[in-house]
């Protein structure tokens, strides 16, 4: 019987202590899986060098993170949303509806996106957005890269691109598919076909073939890597930091003749890159201990600068970091989106 007594006691203890368990002493962030490795690197260093506990970083996707941020104000809601795409007006409206008026937008740097294949798969050293567009578009019937460009190798077309739930897909569409569409002259055609509707013509350019030659990867880059291992002819889309960690198995194609590196991305010569952000709920700044210190530490030169650990992992340092540091110190909230 004593076991029963103890368990009843334990249940009661749990029920009682549940009443005063809402205060929180660590920073909580959620969102993009692209920002996650950078956020964990900063969180780890923050926990080591400050008296505050190590922040907790949840993944789950940019959209989910922003939605979580906008759930409301209070210790049981997240402080920071990591995001690999810019916040949307709908998010800001959602936030406002839940009583969150001030959000701070912090740009931490840029992320390069590369087209990579396995080392033994030669011939994909040089690609252009037009190549990718002609191979991936739903209007394409090409099955071999030779059909796309006679100078390309005699290999079957097999593309592994980020699925629609990824922030990376948006960059792929805008910086690769659209650019290739324009270069191939298809854009003008769609523009005329749709009676001069820009949006419709762009949408037409984004459409990806569904006959199995272009595969949406909804998982992570590790899945894309595994797919390449079983499809040696494949080309996969990766983040620059993932590539840097795996240069002994895969290599990246030059895009328009430019090698992807932190330098070419920072200078803007490499065309496929995007800014990474995190969004902070200003109302939490003086409530959650360490929040202000964490975000200042995140954008400090030691961390986000060109020689910091984030750059070492593959983040392209933001040339305008000083402006971001000022903004964070003065807690300037985001203005209306343009």
């Amino acid at each position, binding site marked *: 019987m004593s076991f029963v007594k103890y*368990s009843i006691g334990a249940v009661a203890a749990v029920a009682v202590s549940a009443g005063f368990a809402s205060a929180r002493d660590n920073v909580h962030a959620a969102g993009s899986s692209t920002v996650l490795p950078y956020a964990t690197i900063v969180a780890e260093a923050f926990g080591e*060098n400050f008296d505050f506990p190590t922040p907790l970083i949840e993944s789950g996707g940019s959209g989910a993170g922003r939605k979580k941020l906008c759930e409301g104000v209070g210790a*049981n809601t997240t402080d920071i949303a990591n995001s690999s795409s810019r916040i949307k007006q709908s998010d800001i409206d959602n936030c406002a509806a839940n009583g969150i008026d001030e959000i701070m937008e912090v740009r931490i740097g840029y992320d390069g996106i590369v087209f990579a294949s396995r080392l033994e798969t030669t011939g994909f050293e040089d690609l252009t957005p037009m190549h990718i567009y002609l191979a991936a578009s739903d209007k394409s019937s090409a099955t071999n890269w030779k059909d796309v460009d006679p100078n390309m190798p005699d290999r079957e077309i097999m593309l592994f691109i980020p699925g629609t739930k990824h922030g990376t897909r948006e960059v792929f569409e805008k910086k690769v598919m659209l650019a290739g569409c324009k270069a191939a002259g298809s854009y003008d055609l769609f523009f005329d076909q749709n009676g001069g509707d820009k949006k419709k013509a762009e949408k037409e350019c984004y459409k990806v073939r569904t006959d199995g030659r272009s595969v949406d990867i909804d998982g992570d880059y590790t899945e894309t890597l595994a797919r390449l291992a079983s499809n040696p002819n494949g080309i996969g889309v990766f983040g620059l930091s993932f590539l840097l960690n795996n240069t002994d198995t895969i290599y990246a194609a030059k895009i328009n003749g430019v090698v992807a590196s932190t330098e070419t991305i920072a200078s803007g010569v490499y065309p496929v890159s995007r800014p990474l952000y995190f969004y902070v709920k200003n109302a939490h700044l003086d409530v959650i201990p360490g929040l202000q210190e964490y975000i200042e530490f995140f954008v400090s030169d030691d961390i986000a600068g060109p020689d910091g650990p984030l750059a070492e992992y593959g983040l392209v340092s933001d040339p305008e970091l000083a402006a971001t540091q000022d903004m964070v110190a003065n807690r300037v909230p985001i203005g209306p989106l343009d």
Partner: protein
Amino acid sequence: MSLKARQSKEKRFQFAGLAAISIGLLCLVMLFASVLSAGLPAFQQTFIKLTFNLPADKLDKSGNRNPQEMKKVSTIGYTKVITEQLKLNLTKAGLEFDQLSKKELKNMISKEAPAQVRYAVLEDPSLLDREFEMVLLANGRIDGYYKGRVTKKSAELDVMVSPKQLELADQMKRAGILETRFNGRFFYWPDASDLRPEAAGLGVALLGSFYMVLIVLVLAVPLAVCTAIFLEEFAPKNRFTDLIEINISNLAAVPSIVFGILGLSLFINFMDLPQSAPIVGGLCLTLMTLPTVIIAARASIKAVPPSIKAAALGLGASKVQAVFHHVLPSAAPGILTGTIIGLAQALGETAPLLLIGMVAFVREYPSLSPEGIFEPATALPVQLYNWTVRGDPAFVERASGAIIVLLVFMITMNLLAIVLRKRFERRW
């Protein structure tokens, strides 16, 4: 049917059964082989032993050995100091390192090392005044070299490591500065960021899983046993109890993610329990395990012959006495087995934890006191998943190591269930 036809039919059936078992066994062997070959190296780690003569003027500028003031020197400051110390140690051992760049030298040692040294110095500032030895982690790629993951050939292509570094590592090994040995820290260190896979461990995850299993045990077992006894022994058989019975069976088949959704809306949003905490995870898993344990408990109560209860009642025992003194002890082995299998299921579950914020990077241990169940933690399967999505191939090894740990727990629990059943099972 002729005798021959019947016999050959039996042979065919036996063959089919044998084939089915062989395929199953083959898959199991393949799974174990791949997991073991990938994961066993996780229990080994490469360490570098250095003698330190730390520059006190750099690490304690005011010179009063006050840890509060010494905190101003960050791990970035310590990184430079450690690289200098490595150079001194290499010179003393008579090793050449001129051909390595500063960055290559720095990257011989794990990025965890500055934090280790800084922590040790802040704990005991007197270390600045004397010589001391400290064992540091080697960089993940160097470690991979001794586990066959990195070769001199792959290092030529790898931007994270150079053949020169591997050459130096070999020399250090011969000089006795570097060695690969058992790594107990894998079990008690917390997770680490993508920059330092060599420092990542299962500590927080094991603690989180332990708390959750404890919560499931404390909550699910009494609830399930009471429900089972009531339904079997006391409840009238009518439409209403039939409905309950059907619902329990249905709940056992509900996908576990549903319990996560329930947990999010009920425990976090409505009851205001903290996110990412073992208490919420434990409650979700309790809901998930309850039907399994109830069904097992009912089955074993049902298996107790009615004559035992009838005899007790005949001797003047009350119904409660008959149940608690005779039926329940006889059914206990079966209930125990069901409980252990339910717990093993809860231990391996990830889906519900995804929604309540436990799939996260957590580096702070939850405290060992009862409050610990309200503090953020991860769980074993979650940690495993987190490692599989990371970029550095060293995390594949970590993830496979975690699989082995999880499998060992599972096998132990299931073995325990079998042993208990064999030991206490009574045939009537």
